[in-house]
């Protein structure tokens, strides 16, 4: 790599191309015709269709930060962060639910109301082609979840999903090999590029300052090469929109040593800490065919602060999340075509001590403590999931905190004993998180927020944030449509700012 720093010049730089950066790029793109130069700087690669191989480890290395193995500092939670042209919208399942009014009320951000977010969410639901799958398109894993919930009287709703021409490979979390999922890599970014926005992949933003971003371009050895040759660049710009996600955005701001005091920077991180629960049926379930995530159960969202969703995971991730080893573990793993799976997500509180900082190299360090409130939620989620499994006819259930590796239908009557709360401990159960939120939370008061309600960083009129880091508290639902709605607001603000200038 050359050592000389090369200069590039734009008017607006957008750092990140996921659910935040994609909409910002598309909304600003029409300005290109008026001579406004816009660049999207994306750390991840731009994959070609042939690069989506569906192989678990290979795709994890290509599409996730640290191959999907990024841990919190105490190593009790694994964080999944998509890193590609399209960000995490390449690797989510496309479930598209707008945020609820009660959650926006809890956020209590002056200048942000549910009606505005709702209208903008509707816009992106339409733009991304979100719709309900037809009955014949639901696979057995999803139907079993619905049956189990219905027989217990738990409310389960169908997810709208943003797929066009889905061929039911079930590989959503490894990137759709058939291009069906309408992430920003399929919708917003191509449209922005068509209108003149430059998207630079393989480009890591090292730090920002007023008037410039300092970046390094590298090629990963797969996908399309970056449009810029490898090397270091100073990208001169008038406005910067940071949309690198809830971990990287606060880390970028922290290592940039901005000329303002932002005591809330990195704080109030929420994760929706999640558990994977698995049950074995006597008959085929074949979760590896069809769309993997069609239903959500929100019956316990208010009472016990958790959600249950259908899911389907791949062999390595499934094996890693089963607690135990040996013959029982191998028996369950050997029956992948008879497994029903549920993802349980805790709706965690936003606490100032849960935060993103940076180490001496400027790399993000996530300090997150699994408090009793979250562990209680996960325990209740395990009990509810076990009830759903048995109600759906499962013969053997694996709960991560179960007293035994397998629970059997006879245990259904005494689940509190079979899944004791004392076994729900950090480090003993495998907890993952893919809904990473907060760290640059919106608000009015600079002492406990980082940006205003429109994403402008307090005290810096050249810097905006447009991603899930804006969330002042958890979304309490899969967050990507809400990220898009917030990014839409930020784009509007940036447009107005440029018009004034």
């Amino acid at each position, binding site marked *: 790599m050359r050592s000389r720093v090369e200069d590039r010049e734009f008017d607006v730089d957008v750092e990140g191309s996921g659910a935040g950066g994609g909409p910002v790029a598309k909304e600003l793109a029409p300005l290109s015709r008026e001579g406004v130069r816009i660049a999207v700087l994306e750390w991840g690669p731009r994959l070609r269709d042939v690069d989506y191989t569906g192989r678990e*480890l290979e795709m994890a290395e290509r599409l996730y930060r640290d191959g999907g193995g990024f841990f919190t500092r105490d190593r009790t939670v694994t964080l999944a962060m998509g890193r590609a042209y399209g960000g995490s919208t390449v690797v989510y399942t496309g479930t598209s639910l707008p945020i609820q009014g009660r959650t926006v009320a809890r956020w209590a951000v002056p200048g942000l109301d549910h009606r505005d977010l709702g209208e903008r969410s509707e816009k992106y639901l339409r733009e991304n082609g979100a719709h309900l799958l037809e009955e014949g398109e639901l696979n057995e894993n999803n139907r079993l979840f619905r049956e189990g919930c219905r027989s217990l009287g738990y409310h389960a709703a169908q997810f709208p999903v943003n*797929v066009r*021409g889905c061929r039911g*490979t079930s590989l959503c979390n490894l990137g759709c090999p*058939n291009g069906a999922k309408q992430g920003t890599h399929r919708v917003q970014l191509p449209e922005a590029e068509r209108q003149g926005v430059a998207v630079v992949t393989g480009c890591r933003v090292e730090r920002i300052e007023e008037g410039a971003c300092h970046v390094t371009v590298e090629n990963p050895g797969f996908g399309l090469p970056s449009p810029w040759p490898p090397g270091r660049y100073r990208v001169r710009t008038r406005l910067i929109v940071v949309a690198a996600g809830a971990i990287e955005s606060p880390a970028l701001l922290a290592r940039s040593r901005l000329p303002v005091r932002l005591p809330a920077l990195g704080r109030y991180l929420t994760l929706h800490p999640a558990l994977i629960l698995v049950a074995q049926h006597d008959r085929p379930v074949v979760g590896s065919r069809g769309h993997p995530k069609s239903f959500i159960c929100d019956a316990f969202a208010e009472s016990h602060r958790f959600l249950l969703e259908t899911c389907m995971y791949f*062999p390595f991730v499934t094996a*890693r999340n089963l607690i135990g080893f040996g013959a029982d573990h*191998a028996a369950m793993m050997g029956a*992948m075509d008879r497994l029903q799976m549920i993802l349980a997500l805790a709706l965690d509180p936003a606490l100032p001590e849960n935060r993103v900082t940076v180490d001496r190299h400027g790399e993000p360090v996530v300090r997150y403590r699994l408090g009793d409130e979250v562990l209680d939620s996960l325990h209740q989620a395990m009990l509810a999931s076990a009830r759903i499994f048995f109600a759906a006819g499962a013969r053997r259930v694996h709960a991560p905190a179960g007293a035994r590796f397998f629970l059997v239908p006879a245990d259904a009557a005494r689940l509190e004993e079979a899944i004791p709360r004392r076994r729900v401990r950090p*480090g003993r159960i495998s907890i993952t998180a893919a809904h990473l939120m907060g760290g640059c939370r919106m608000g009015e008061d600079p002492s406990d927020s980082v940006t205003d309600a429109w994403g402008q960083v307090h005290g810096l009129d050249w810097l905006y944030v447009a991603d899930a880091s804006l969330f002042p508290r958890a979304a309490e639902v899969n967050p990507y449509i809400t990220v898009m709605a917030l990014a839409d607001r930020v784009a509007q603000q940036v447009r107005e700012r440029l018009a004034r200038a």
Partner: protein
Amino acid sequence: MSVLGPRGQAFLWALTLRLVPPAAGAPPEERARSLAVADGALGRRPPAVRRQVRLFLLALRWLPALGYLRPLDRLGGPAQDRVLAWFQDSPLTPLALGLWGVKGLVYMGWYGRPELGERIGFRPVLSGDEKSRGG
């Protein structure tokens, strides 16, 4: 280049046999491929993580000698399982997390290989399935 080296790999395979009993029937090439996947994945992690894993493997091998006077891989199968279960349920979080990390490495090597899918009933079809076509 191998992170674990021949001794480390031999110990990792001994763990594989306890954690994944069907691995006992694996032919040499399958064993080599499984270890290569795990070792390769470890090689892509930051140096600090590689050091931690090597250190934990050393501890896991030799801590049982305090009680059994032999390293873990020289114990009988049931005794090995008892030690592994003790680590898994240890109230000392670093020990429990360490075992969880090593289990992850073993499972990555064994279950992360695409060729195993057919054997365990995981058969996604890359080009899709007409019957489950959606959207």
